């Protein structure tokens, strides 16, 4: 275990203090990273009038839990939360399915046109999604899918999501030893059998990483929902968060920060427990190009 190792190394419990300068520097550097989270959480239980008190108490003396109730009555926040969960889950499943199939084929199967197709996908990797929003919007309008969740699901699944996913899964399957699959061929499996019974189970780490990236990208997306969805009950979380404002567009801070806390804290909790896996997933985005 890592902790017992470091304990052995620092047999003197105060040994870490020898590095006090490094710790001090890191603690100072942490301030702009932690301050927003702390402020968000502590303000979420303040009344609208206490929210600007200075200096602020570390945690309010009389926590005003009613903010969390009001959030749900101000707009259909539970419904909006469910929308985001639903959309992100469907997008993640779709991307994993499509990207693992095509990523595997580009890595392993010999077929005519393979490198040409893959080059196309590779080129699409570097095109900002904003370039295609206007044609996609017009297509969705023509198909009468505006103000539905359909564009928020199919565009990421088939567009940018699966483009990056295909690239990532191909990279993974390329470094999987071929010999593992040869036994399947000898057993008379066809390619689909080899894929589902041998390759895919081994790809669990890559699939997990892709799932983390896809889910968060969909969960955090703002531009697409802003364009495609107009009705409050159809809103996703980011749209809903931006909408805790009065008639003049002035934020209702106590509600907005409470809602933001409700949207952010669950993600942070998962992150606390799966920190290594989540960070490793994001590092996959650094190996492209």
């Amino acid at each position, binding site marked *: 275990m890592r902790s017992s190792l470091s304990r052995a190394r620092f047999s003197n419990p105060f040994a870490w203090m020898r590095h006090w300068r*490094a*710790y001090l*520097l890191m603690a100072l*550097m942490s301030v*702009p990273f932690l301050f*927003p989270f702390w*402020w968000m959480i502590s*303000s979420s239980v303040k009344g609208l009038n206490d929210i*600007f008190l*200075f*200096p*602020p108490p570390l945690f309010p003396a009389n926590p005003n839990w009613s903010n969390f109730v009001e959030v749900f009555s101000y707009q259909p926040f539970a419904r909006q939360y469910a929308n985001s969960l639903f959309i992100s889950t469907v997008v993640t499943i779709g991307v994993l399915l499509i990207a693992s*199939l*095509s990523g595997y*084929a580009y890595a392993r199967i*010999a*077929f005519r046109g393979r490198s040409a*197709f893959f080059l*196309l996908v590779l080129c*699409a990797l*570097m*095109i*900002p999604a*904003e*370039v*295609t*929003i*206007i*044609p*996609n919007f017009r297509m969705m309008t023509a198909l009468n899918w505006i103000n539905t969740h359909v564009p928020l699901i*199919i565009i990421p*699944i*088939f*567009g940018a999501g699966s*483009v990056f996913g*295909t690239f990532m899964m191909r990279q993974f399957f390329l470094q999987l030893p071929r010999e593992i699959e040869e036994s399947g061929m000898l057993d008379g499996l*066809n*390619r689909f059998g080899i*894929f589902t019974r041998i390759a895919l189970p081994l790809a669990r780490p890559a699939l997990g990483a892709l799932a983390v990236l896809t889910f968060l990208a969909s969960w*955090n997306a*703002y*531009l697409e929902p*802003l364009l495609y969805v107009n009705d409050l009950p159809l809103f996703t979380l*980011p749209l809903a*968060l*931006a909408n805790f404002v009065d008639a003049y567009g002035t*934020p209702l801070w106590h509600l*907005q*920060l409470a809602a*933001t806390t409700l949207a*952010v804290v669950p993600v*942070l909790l998962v*992150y606390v427990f799966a*920190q290594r896996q*989540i*960070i490793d997933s*994001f*590092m996959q*985005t*650094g190996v492209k190009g």
Partner: protein
Amino acid sequence: MKTTLAPRRRGLTWAQKDSVWGYAFVTPQLIGFTVFVLIPIVSVFLFSLESRNLLSGKVSFIGLDNYGTMAARDPLFWKTVGNTLIFSAGLVPFNIALALLLANMLARALAGITFFRAVFFAPVITASVAWAIVWQFLLQGDRGPINQLLAALGITGPDWLRTEGWAMAAVIFSRVIKTVGLNTVIFLAALKNIPTEYVEAAQIDGATRAQVFRRITLPLLAPTTLLVTVITVIGSLQVFDHIVMLTQGGPANSTFVLVYYIYFQAFKVFETGYASSLAVVLFVIALTLTLAQWALRRRFVYNEV
């Protein structure tokens, strides 16, 4: 009777069947890709040649007029290009310098270092809308926490988001804190790949920590730095959520960046033809940067260890 048995079909070989599987595997992605990426890219070029208003429905083919308007008759376009440049020029060096600093701090084998790594990375997984909401709150002029903190130190802070100059600085700063964690962990991974012998040899020769960093670490990180720079530049061109939430392009259009301008033309004033020509500009910039990266990379490969 033997004739009732179907004659055995002339079978395909395994390799032939395999290539059929290959097409079957890539088809869903390829169809979706064609519909939602390939055709839209071609369309955006075609749309950029017409004047089309989404509300009135008026359409006319105007050739390259949109580009002429952009170049000669739309000062706001040049303003947004300039703002995008300022944004990138401020964000990219700040982001990379900070990422290098944090990565070097995190590379030390100290107890509890993973806690700090988690802290620096936490904003990356946070929705940018949520992040921007909190910063909008922190950066308020009269009673925002940051200005109250400064007031306690005897400094009168500006109305960050409503003052020209400060607004761009505040957007850049909050954006760097949001995104620097990703570059940090990429640098951290690259740092761990540097053989310790190099550093030890230099230390035996009496090199100071700064010298080791400048003469050994930095040159060996060059390929990573190049990659990270290009990713960060392209990412900085795409900033949108932050601008919408924090400034809406203001004050006095000083944070009006290119992607926000595309959105504005297409979905606020509904000039989709003109907006398409702006999208083409974005496309060309992103393409140029990527090709430049590939060209530079080829040269850098020599230096890779």
